């Protein structure tokens, strides 16, 4: 079975024990994103201090891929500057659209490299991106509120 290439241990670990889960105060923006094809959903908050992402907190319902991805994302962006975090987000998006053809950069993506197998399954890419898209959206809104 090829399943192991999609469901790497890192992913299953994050799925079973997600990091940073739960909704916390304070926050500048909260968004609710849904995957219309399957109904997976995430509610996500962003708390900025200056241009640093101080906290990302979320509640989500969904498959292992969407859950694990939100967990990995929160690990990656919390404590980073908005600019750096956005760069990581772009890198992850590129990985997802690569159909498994690029070698992910572990220095940048850390645990997120484990999602390389997911990029071969177009129907699952949206799952892996759900949390990231919500975070991006919430961050832009938080920045708008700030300015």
């Amino acid at each position, binding site marked *: 079975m090829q399943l192991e290439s999609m469901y790497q241990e890192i992913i299953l670990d994050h799925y079973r024990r997600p990091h940073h889960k739960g909704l916390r105060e304070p926050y500048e923006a909260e968004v609710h994103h849904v995957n219309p094809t*399957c*109904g*997976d959903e995430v509610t996500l908050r962003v708390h900025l201090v200056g241009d640093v992402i101080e906290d990302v907190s979320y509640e989500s319902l*969904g498959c*292992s891929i*969407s859950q694990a991805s939100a967990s990995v994302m929160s690990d990656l962006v919390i404590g980073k500057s908005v600019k750096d975090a956005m760069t990581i987000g772009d890198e992850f998006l590129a990985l997802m659209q690569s159909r498994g053809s690029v070698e992910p950069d572990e220095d940048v993506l850390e645990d997120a490299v484990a999602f390389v197998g997911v990029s071969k*399954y177009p129907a*699952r890419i949206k799952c892996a991106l759900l949390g990231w898209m919500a975070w991006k959206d919430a961050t832009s809104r938080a920045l708008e509120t700030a300015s």
Partner: protein
Amino acid sequence: MVALPALLPEELKKDFPILSRTVRGGRPLIYLDSGATSQKPRQVLDAEREFYEQRNAAVHRGAHLLAEEATEAFEGARATIAHFIGATDVREVVFTKNATESINLVAYSLSNAATSGSSASRFLVGPGDEILVTEMEHHANLVPWQQLCQRTGATLRWFGVTDEGRLDLSQIDELINERTKLVAMTHQSNVLGTVLPVQEIAAKARAAGALIVLDAAQSVPHIPVDVADLGVDFLAFSGHKMLGPSGIGVLWGRYDLLAAMPPFITGGSMIEVVRMEATTFMPPPQRFEAGVPMTAQAVGLAAACDYLTELGMDRVAAHEHALTEYGLAKLAEIPGLRLIGPSTAESRGGTLAFVVDGVHSHDLGQVLDELGIAVRVGHHCAWPLHRRFQAQATTRASLYLYNTLPDLDALADGVREAQKFFGTV
């Protein structure tokens, strides 16, 4: 494994070229997603191709031989399809692109009644009027009615669903009342498999003076359907779910109603006289078939009806009933699996939707796919129903005439394999 006498011969699979292809890792394809769309037998593909290669022309518009032959093929297809659903008047069969358009046609014709003069006044819907649906509807038979209410100011109401997955009729006498202008319901749920007591509901609706729309997208392909028996006014279905091509659907409607209804999509071939200032329209079915229609697809759908008729819809239904009983029993043995829908095969079609503790349906679907088993995961365009059952998503295996007992064995084995993979057993 037993060979049940009701089953159709396994050789049927040979008529469907796609069923002999292999999928991931060279595994044979086990197709359990016919509720989404069915596969097509060679006979249907041949009929379409023969039309394109021998008789293709714009129908109803030309006087040359090809146009004559194309028109004959198209209208012959209409007659075959009318006969298939027990319609005695071929003019009651309107071609659309899918069941979704068929339902929208009725919904828009009703709102168009507001600007179509007194002859259409019986179709007027407005504030204070009620449109009644059910909580188990496919979005195709829910959203168009929400939108009709939005356009007209009418109020949407709905039947609930019981824990067993049956329609909750306890409030029927309050729900169907003198304000009810239209009742829209599914014949067979695309998630639960439940077959609704259409005649009973239709009788009450008729007594209240309401129009009755039946979403037959999941019944016409699977059980004998006779419009004369059902007591409804309109019936919608799609070709692609019943061995036919994509791109074609049907709205059947009572002739006297269709003849009084304002048009929906307008353009060529549906007009009587056109002036810059105003236009008059042809009688049904032409009034509702603007533009060059899906001619080859009508011919293909008629070939699908012929294929089903030759097998016999009774036998198709019996085959699926036997498979359903077997599948329900198989799934019931799996710990941690919760079926959404009736647990017995009575008044129920071959649609098996379920959740598995600790394994999200997306993940379950992925494991099954890896094993060559195609099922559908998600809300299956019935989101309110999923909310009703506190299921964010379900896994759905939906059966058709080409499925076999081993397909169901493979499904059950696959579910157990997923449970093992995700460590929930």
